[in-house]
């Protein structure tokens, strides 16, 4: 038996989105991406923002990261209103070129430690090597990003975010550009890392199965603009429950909630 999965700790709120309304500025004007969305994330919790494209889930993540300013509402981290980006909220992006091509894998992981966390070069290197060992990249320490496969790049990006020990880890569809086998491997590895390190995570995806597998709680959003549809507690679902009747039930349930009963629309 595995140890019981970490459940949410209702007492210790790390992150709060309070009545977030977000606008997307384009050349022709501004478009409302997200309207009046609120949620809290407790320490050790893994919240998944799930919804179809156009529901503003990535925009919410950008607001949490501090890249964009909310039109209304606030993001609070450890009780403090977020006003700008910072290394206490590190992001793993979908794009493979998030690794800086002029740095080796080890330098990429050590870089935020020295530049944003005030670690010495040696200390940063030691932490980087540990983090890279955790994601199985020990053999690629001195490789440049161009020499890595897509899966290895995303592993390195996860190691880079983990190494800096942010208060909350933000992931924006990090596995969406990977092939199915690599994606499954990385999902399982992320679950292992979560059980091992008990980090707090906000994960954005449009894949329902991925959301149920990785999250402890799902926050469902509608599209145009993004509004809260429902929340689901998925703490009890792990790797072993994929394909079980209970897993299929909740996937169907989520599908109905997102698409109003239309079947077969799930990714």
């Amino acid at each position, binding site marked *: 038996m595995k140890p019981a999965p970490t459940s949410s700790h209702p007492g210790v709120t790390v992150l709060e989105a309070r009545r977030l309304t977000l606008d997307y500025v384009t050349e022709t004007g501004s478009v409302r991406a997200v309207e009046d969305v609120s949620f809290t994330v407790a320490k050790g919790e893994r919240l998944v923002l799930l919804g179809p494209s156009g529901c503003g889930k990535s925009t919410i993540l950008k607001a949490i*990261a*501090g*890249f964009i300013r909310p039109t209304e509402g606030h993001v609070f981290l450890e009780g403090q209103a977020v006003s*700008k*980006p*910072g*290394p206490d*909220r*590190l*992001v793993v*992006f979908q*794009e493979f*070129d*998030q690794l*800086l*091509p*002029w740095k080796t894998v080890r330098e990429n992981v050590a*870089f*935020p430690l020295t*530049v*944003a966390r005030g670690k010495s070069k040696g200390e940063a290197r030691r932490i980087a090597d540990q983090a890279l060992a*955790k*994601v*199985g*990249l020990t*053999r*690629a320490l001195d*490789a*440049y990003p*161009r*020499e890595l*496969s897509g*899966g*290895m790049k995303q*592993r390195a990006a996860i190691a880079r975010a983990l190494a800096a020990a942010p208060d909350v880890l933000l992931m924006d569809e990090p596995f969406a550009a990977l092939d199915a086998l*690599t994606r499954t*491997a990385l999902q*399982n*590895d992320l679950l*292992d890392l979560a059980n091992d390190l008990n980090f707090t995570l906000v994960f954005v995806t449009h894949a329902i199965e991925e959301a149920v597998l990785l999250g402890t709680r799902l926050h469902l959003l509608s599209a145009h603009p993004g509004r809260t549809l429902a929340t689901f507690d998925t703490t009890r679902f792990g790797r*072993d429950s994929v394909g079980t009747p209970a897993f299929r039930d909740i996937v169907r349930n989520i599908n109905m909630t997102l698409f109003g009963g239309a079947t077969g629309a799930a990714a």
Partner: protein
Amino acid sequence: MTDQTADLPAVADATPPSSRPRRTFTHSVAFRRSAVLLLLAFLWQSAADWAANPLLLPSFTQTMAALCDAILHEHLLTAIVASLGVLLKGYLIALALAVVLVSLAIANIFLREALLTLTAMFNPLPAIALLPLAMLWFGLGEMSLIFVLVHSVMWPFALATFTGFQSVPEAHRLVGRNYGLTGPRYVAHILIPSALPSIISGLKIGWAFAWRTLIAAELVFGVSSSQGGLGWFIFRNRNELFTDKVFAGLVSVILIGLVVEFGLFRVLENATVRRWGTQG
């Protein structure tokens, strides 16, 4: 029973890329390049022997002899050093001015338009066409040369650098901002390395323009009244119909170009953008 073995991070995709198969000397770039140079020298020698008129077309060997003679007895190296000194001054001044221009253009959208307009105006204007004006303003001397050199280098370099900064991928920008980098630290850690392929390309274009402009300008007058440069050496020897020395001067121009390209820029590229795989 445990299912932990399946939980190990997959290392199957963690194999470093295979190293290239070892190459023999006859397959190397150096070999091919040397072969081309030898062939050119041979063709030149044959053509000169066939023409048999050293006043119009001195042979390869005559040119080499003239080159040695010029180095030993006519201070050709001093002339080259004089030329390169002026070139370096103009080049560095142009780079410094371009950095200021690009910084302003990045900071302000109006100045950005100004930079793009000025670049569009001055880029097609051959620097040498400004020489008469420069001579009028600054007289016959180093100042005039530096003026046209700055003009020849500043605009293309500023444009290349600005384009490089503009095309820094969004992912790199976001990563830098995510770490809380701002101002000079953001520029130094993110923008410059990310834009380096364009910056190096701008340095190369600037160098090529500067070298051509300088030699052309020196054909009109020397670096200074007492000490002529390489262009002046060519011009002076043509006037006295020492055609072999003219050829020696031209060979020097070409050799210096090759040394800078392969000894300087290629080394810089190999250490940076080629190694990173970011070269366009």
